[in-house]
């Protein structure tokens, strides 16, 4: 071009960055809502669904209000306790420089999620829509999908779009799994996890804060599944500055990229996170409990084809829960090494769980919760720009979302339904 293009204003690049993080969150939520509305129509027996989140109390729809409340509270406390232990183990491993172990574990977790969870949901969809695909094609496509997904998660230099797409898919699959938990347990779990996130990131002894400080001190990236938005490059970025500066919180950037000036001046920080997803641990446990039927689960446990290695490994798997997939997803929001906004996959998951649970009631709650979550995310981004350190992305959004869900279900629904029925509006 002969002349330089008009320099982008701060508003444009700031808006672009925000859009680039809100779009995948919205896509993930949208996909979970679609999955939930297609697959959870039967509202089948959740009594047989045992996992670490229902280890203390299995919900029954005939229990009284207080029974359900206490049971859900107990479940979520157990869950948060397990997550705390797992996160501390993660911090310990990171401290002992076992990063390659963590990376391999991350790849393995991604393989399990994409292969088993993704395969299972694909099978559900197959059965629901009666898609006449033969088993060879299906298995081949699933195999391809899984292997390329593991590579996308593993390799840092894959196409950005492919990596982002796979992270969104992984978030969607784990979030769908969480929506299978009983209702009260899910809501209590969301609240408990957001409070835990708040404590773990902001308190001086919190595991996530330790993790972030370790990563900063060593100038390393935490090996975890974190969604990094594509950084906005200013149009007038001259070619010699094509190499994206690696660490922005060491020296102030001298590149005139609007968002970077806004968010990075000085000490922006790598992502924080709660190690959250315990998908395989739960999945393994549920498979194990199903295979060894009747072990501590109320209701009818479904009989699956017992896999011998799972039965043998019962004790080992249950003991391994603490180690499994602690680093699969992190929560928390921060800034990546290239100045782009990073959002932990745990945030994707819990936002989608909230919206998915709302979808199991009605779409009205979906809209309300979606708006609440996006508003919360916007507030968190503003706080991120303001405080310039790693922040928990769960509390504001999830608490707002739960509040809006309750208000919609208790107050708004009656109003809207009466208006619609009487043809006043909508």
């Amino acid at each position, binding site marked *: 071009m002969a002349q330089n293009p008009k320099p982008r204003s701060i508003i444009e690049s700031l808006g672009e960055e925000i859009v680039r993080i809100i779009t995948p969150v919205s896509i993930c939520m949208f996909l979970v809502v679609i999955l939930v509305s297609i697959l959870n129509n039967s509202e089948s027996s959740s009594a047989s669904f045992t996992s670490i989140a229902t280890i203390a109390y299995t919900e029954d729809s005939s229990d009284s209000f207080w029974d359900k409340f206490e049971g859900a509270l107990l479940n979520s406390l157990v869950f948060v306790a397990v997550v705390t232990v797992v996160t501390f183990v993660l911090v310990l491993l990171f401290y002992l420089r076992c990063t390659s172990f963590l990376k391999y574990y991350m790849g393995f977790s991604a393989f399990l999620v994409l292969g088993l969870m993704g395969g299972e949901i694909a099978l559900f969809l197959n059965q629901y829509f009666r898609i006449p695909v*033969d088993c060879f094609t299906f298995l081949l496509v699933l195999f391809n999908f899984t*292997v390329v997904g593991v590579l996308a998660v593993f390799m840092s230099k894959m196409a950005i779009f492919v990596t982002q797409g796979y992270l969104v898919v992984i978030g969607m699959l784990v979030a769908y799994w969480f929506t299978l938990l009983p209702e009260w347990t899910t809501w209590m779990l969301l609240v408990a996890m957001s409070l835990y996130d708040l404590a773990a990131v902001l308190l001086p002894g919190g595991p996530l804060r330790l993790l972030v400080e370790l990563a900063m001190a060593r100038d390393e990236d935490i090996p975890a599944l974190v969604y990094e938005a594509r950084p906005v490059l200013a149009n007038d970025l001259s070619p010699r500055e094509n190499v994206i500066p690696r660490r922005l919180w060491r020296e102030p950037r001298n590149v005139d990229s609007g968002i970077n000036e806004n968010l990075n001046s000085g000490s922006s920080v790598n992502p924080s996170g709660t190690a959250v997803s315990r998908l395989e641990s739960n999945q393994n446990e549920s498979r194990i409990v199903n295979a060894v039927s009747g072990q501590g689960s109320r209701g009818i446990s479904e009989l699956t084809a017992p896999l011998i290695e799972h039965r043998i490994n019962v004790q080992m798997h249950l003991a391994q829960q603490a180690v499994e997939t602690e680093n699969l997803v992190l929560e928390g929001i921060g800034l990546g090494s290239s100045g782009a906004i990073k959002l932990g996959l745990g945030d994707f998951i819990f936002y989608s769980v909230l919206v998915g649970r709302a979808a199991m009631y009605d779409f009205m709650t979906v809209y309300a919760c979606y708006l609440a979550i996006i508003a919360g995310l916007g507030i968190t981004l503003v706080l991120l720009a303001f405080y310039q350190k790693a922040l928990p992305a769960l509390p504001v959004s999830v608490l707002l979302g739960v509040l809006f869900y309750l208000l919609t279900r208790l107050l708004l629904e009656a109003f809207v339904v009466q208006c619609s029925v009487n043809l006043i509006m909508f």
Partner: protein
Amino acid sequence: MERAAELENNNNNENSSTSSSSSLIGGSVRQEWPTIDGPLGLSENDSVWYARYFFIFGFLMLPLLWAVNCYLFWPVLIHSRSFPLLRPYIVRSAIAFAVFSAILGSWAVTFVVGGERLFGHTWDELVMYNVADKYGLTGWI
């Protein structure tokens, strides 16, 4: 994706006009980026390894890897006569992916359209939802 391509074009254009002042860390003057991410992706020397191994591992029944290879190095496919080190791998990946997907697609379409008329009772044995029911594959959750 368009933005990255647009940036790459901008970079290329600016490169031609400011070639005297532009220099990469390694001292090379070529500024074109072989990956679709443009300046965010790999340089040409780094990407030879990726192109080669994506092509080789695609032969392990992983045609999606060929497709990802073509997507990742899309500028290499578009601009013929550029990146002489990479182009053979990418072109071969594209051809291999096209051949494989033609074969798989024709098999899948035959399966769907032929149905029971063509396969007889084995159609029921091969179709995925029956296989899933038979082996109880959806009973985990």
